[in-house]
């Protein structure tokens, strides 16, 4: 039986970390964010700008403007999906670090549909692409699940390494056989036609792909809390040994959770290419897989807490973009802010037990 799951306490996995935001009094979370903003302000000051001014501008540009809010929404769409891609396996006791790669294989599969199985009707085309995206991500995750089951390779390392293989696979195709012959040498596929595009609300980039995370959240929540399946899955994640002794097929539930997680990340990839880029190109994901993992982890893998966690991340990411426009800071500054928030929220987390 080499598919044995480690008990949460013995494995220094995401599980062992326990809930971060979930177990955290709101006051601490607010304190963490406030401290991070303060430190960030000091850096802005150091670079010779007025931090209050910059933050005020960012606030107006992100929360205070319809466009800013729509951008937050656009960012949240893939984030919620990749957060679920970590949260669902985590509920069954597995750690999926592979959201980034599964997103890429999902985007790759969806693009494959556009290139090779093109249908004119959006009503048929988009669901087909979504299915392909799920399959692409799911298969990528299934490889990790199989390696775990048959060869005892832990999913942490296999999904992490598979991320780079997936990204290189996408690059190989868009630099090679899938490159648009009329694209002036840019490594893009041919642009998707209207049938393969998720329509956006006029004047914004906020597109109908937003349905995907909403539906996924509802389905996952209902399955986890309202079905026998979900109950068994939670039992497997909570204590695999007890679940095994209750006659639950632990291996199968763990693998299913992993594959479901991969499918959700793959769906995120489809949504990104069909909703934002309208073609496949390098860099379709600015670390969305990793950010989703961190959001899920910040939320203690609690499906409902994932929404505010992703909102927070999206706000910071868009803030980075806005600061780039208003204060001339590089947009990656938003990433630094997210890092600070993570460190501080974690550092303020109450310890359950003293380390050795």
């Amino acid at each position, binding site marked *: 039986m080499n598919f044995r799951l480690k*008990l949460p306490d013995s494995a220094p996995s995401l599980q062992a970390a326990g809930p971060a935001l979930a177990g955290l009094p709101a006051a601490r979370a607010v304190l963490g964010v406030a401290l991070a903003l303060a430190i960030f302000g000091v850096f802005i000051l150091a670079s010779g700008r007025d931090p209050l001014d910059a933050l005020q501008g960012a606030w107006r540009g992100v929360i205070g403007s319809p466009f800013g809010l729509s951008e937050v929404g656009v960012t949240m769409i893939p984030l919620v999906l990749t957060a679920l891609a970590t949260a669902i396996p985590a509920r069954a006791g597995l750690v999926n670090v592979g959201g980034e790669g599964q997103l890429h294989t999902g985007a790759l599969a969806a693009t494959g549909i556009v290139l090779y199985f093109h249908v004119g009707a959006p009503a048929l085309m988009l669901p087909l692409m979504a299915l392909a995206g799920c399959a692409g991500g799911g298969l990528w995750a299934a490889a990790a699940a199989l390696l775990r089951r048959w060869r005892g390779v832990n999913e942490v390392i296999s999904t992490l390494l598979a991320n780079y293989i997936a990204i290189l696979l996408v690059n190989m195709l868009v630099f090679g056989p899938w490159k648009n012959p009329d694209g002036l040498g840019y490594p893009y596929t041919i642009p998707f036609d209207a049938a393969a595009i998720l329509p956006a609300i006029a004047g914004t980039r906020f597109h109908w792909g937003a349905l995907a995370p909403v539906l996924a959240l509802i389905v996952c929540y209902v399955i986890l809390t*309202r*079905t*026998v*399946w*979900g*109950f*068994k899955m*939670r*039992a497997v994640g*909570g*204590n695999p*040994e*007890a*679940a*095994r*002794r*209750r*006659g*639950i097929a632990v291996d199968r539930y763990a693998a299913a959770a992993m594959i479901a997680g991969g499918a959700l990340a793959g769906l995120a990839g489809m949504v990104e290419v069909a909703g934002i880029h309208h073609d496949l190109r390098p860099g379709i994901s600015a670390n969305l897989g990793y950010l989703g993992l961190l959001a899920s982890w910040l939320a203690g893998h609690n499906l409902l807490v994932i929404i505010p966690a992703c909102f927070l991340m999206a706000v910071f990411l868009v803030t980075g973009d806005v600061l780039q426009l208003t204060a001339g800071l590089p947009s990656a500054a938003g990433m630094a802010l997210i890092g600070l928030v993570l460190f501080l929220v974690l550092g303020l987390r109450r310890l359950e037990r003293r380390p050795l």
Partner: protein
Amino acid sequence: MSAENLETSPNQDNHTGNGPPLLELRGITKSFPGPAPGTTIAANDGIDLTLRRGEIHAVLGENGSGKSTLMKVIYGYHAPDASKVSPDSYRWLGRPALPGSPAAARRLGIGMVFQDFSLIPALSVAENVALFLPGQGRMLRRRQLVRRIEQFAGEYDLEIDPRQRVDDLSLGERQRVELVKLLLAEARLLIFDEPTSVLAPHEVDGLFRVFSALKDNGYSVLFITHKVREALAVSDNVTVLRRGRVTATAPSRRFDAPSLVAAMVGAENAPPSAAPEPASAAPAVPKPPQTPPAHPPTTPEQTGGAQKETALEFREVSTGRAPRPLSRFRGTTPGGLNAVSFSVRRGEILGVAGVAGNGQRALGEALLGLEPVRRGSILLFGQPVTGHTVSDALKGGVSVIPENPLSDAMVPDMRVDENLLLAGLGRGRPAGFWLNRNTIANRAEAIRAGFPLTMAGPAAPVRSLSGGNIQRVMLAGELGQGASIFLAYYPTRGLDVLSAGATRRLLLEQSNAGAAAVLVSEDLDELLALSDRLLVMYRGRIAGEFAPSEASPQEIGLLMTGHT
């Protein structure tokens, strides 16, 4: 330390007995928090012990008698209860010297070989030894170390290769590495925690020869065991513990096997040299009030012939690794079953006595289908089920009440009602796809209604409950499934007296209602009170079978400890 220190090993000391003893303990008491808040359980209760230089001293007792706790107090791992400590409590060479930590004990010259060795499997023998020796210099002088290990190993005939990785060694070899480690660290008192439990019979003899050689060189050896034969085989003195107290202590030549067993299990004919029988030696667990000691196996007038049906049968069941004659790990496949046969009828309670680790756990693993049956077959109601899955077993009416509920039966982060629901999952309850709060609440309420003990509220996460409460939730979940075959491990462990009594009544009720039950326990009083028949397990085999009326504690005790 350098090689010259070899010559100053304790054999220079006068070890004929004059001068102060090496170690003197007086009135050692060590309490742990009890199951109920605010209560304590004394694992050691006023223990006296004297150990001279060049003495081999066996500490004998059943599991839970306080042997390990006493050793850990000596080794500075546990601090004795402060209120009972005086300068006389712990004297080393006549001076008060209670060690506050294992490191302090090591400085005195005390070394301990634990049951689960403190060796790092991925490092070599020499590296493990180097890690343990107080550091001198920044470099590892491997060659010198290897030479010194070989020197000590040669002196005591402990064939070990210092260059080998520890995970390539058998358990017996690892034990020898531990010993060499202590000798190199200049220990003079060597404590062994159940040293023979990992050894094959021929290895035991080898270990005892080493003990004798150590004694001749002036070392003192303190070892704990639950095997009477071993206590008598090699030791100069024996101290017997029962329920945290000394029930006998004397030179071993003044004991014979029956007198030692009597002191261990608490019967009347203790040897003349024994300490006065303490009050607590009377059975601490009162028998359930309304039940006769051995209830009638079957009550034909109320049950009829159907109840005599055989519910569970083991036929020559063997589990675990097959013994491989050429393997270097021979004799160290612990815990498996070896050609075990028994059967239980409906309405019958079969007691299984034995020291933990003699195959009891494998009974449940094999019954649940978690451990493959290598030979033989298991029958449920006459149907062979060998090769079955857990689900098959549960649907076939099996219920295993595990030894450790938190790790084997419960999901700690789930609520009480969810855990009650979990108990029925493998039996197809609830059926269907959807599951809402009402289903969970109703199921929990139904189980709660049929369970006579008070239980924690449905919404509390199991993690937050006390041990006794967790045990009660698990019992309620298992007994509420309408199973017809129960295998219960230590079902009253961790419960207060009232709950324990009620639990025993519940088992009897299940049995009277036609269920077959196997009760695994180390508590002879409980087994004798509940069982219709009694098996004794030793090293994976059935060592004996009794009707409770004709069983004597001494006889059972001898069988449990491998003294046939």
